[in-house]
């Protein structure tokens, strides 16, 4: 349950960006959360709702885009989604794969009132 700690870091970034832009309020926040990011989206939502009280984002909505685990085979070049966490190419059976997406934990964008 480290989602509250993650949301703490999220608010540090949100508040810094809002200050830079001279925003009065943050009204919407969108995150990208990879399948292998190690966080549970539902817990992020709960932690966000607790954390936002008495902040610049008190009324902000939160959207979470869950990003699948996408890999590319270094041997045959095939790209595939492996949300079962099996690092095995469905084309040629190679285990030599690059992770393209699925580990991210990003603040993608925000909507501000300036």
């Amino acid at each position: 349950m480290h989602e509250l700690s993650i949301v703490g870091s999220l608010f540090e970034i949100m508040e810094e960006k809002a200050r830079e832009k001279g925003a009065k309020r943050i009204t919407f926040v969108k995150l990208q959360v990879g399948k292998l990011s190690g966080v549970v989206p539902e817990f992020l939502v709960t932690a966000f709702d607790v954390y936002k009280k008495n902040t610049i984002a008190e009324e902000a909505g939160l959207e979470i885009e869950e990003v699948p685990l996408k890999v590319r085979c270094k041997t045959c070049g095939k790209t595939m989604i492996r949300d079962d966490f099996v690092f095995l190419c469905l084309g040629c059976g190679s285990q030599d794969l690059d992770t393209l997406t699925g580990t991210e934990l990003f603040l993608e964008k925000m909507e501000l009132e300036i």
Partner: protein
Amino acid sequence: MEKKEILVLEDLLGSNKKIASEIRSKLTQKGILTINFMSSPGAGKTTLLERIAEHMKPDHKMAVIEGDIETERDAERIRAKGILAWQIITGGACHLEARMIGKLFSEIPPDLDFLFIENVGNLVCPASYDLGENIRCVLLSVPEGDDKPKKYPKAFFTSDCLILTKSDLLPLLPFDSARAQKEASEINPKLKIFVTSSLKNEGIEELVAFFIATRQQLLNQNA
């Protein structure tokens, strides 16, 4: 009132990663190999460290940072072996973060060879936090069951080594060692696997030899 959408694209763990890279680079320059141990509570991290300490002495100097929610007990166990140890009490937090290691930085002796970090017992949260280690090890003990790699994929995906512990219990429990190793390797084909028993002192020598060889590579790169 004007509404404006801004693109940020910032990593929520970015500040932790930045501190961790600074720690790694400073410790590596001093020739210190840093190893992060992660596992469920009770998998045998501290007991394995006690065994490792016996194998390291007197040729190699090691120290241990212990992370726990409460008590100084683990650090006291390590100190009883004549090893320098610090205790980080997180007071409820389920994982260590790089800044906690950073706070101890000035106390780490420069002539150290190995710095072990024993994370808070938890197979989920510690996996998200780089502590500045060179090698990350996930421990899986035989009583926990052979199905854990698939249930806690992130810990196995982000580790360099899997250390199976309490192998002396294999004859007594329905733990399929081949299945555990196969499923861990499916998540992470690069995982190096060690089978150990701290009780019987088995497999520890191989593990210590691996740490020593990895440190030697680090020294060669520094040279």
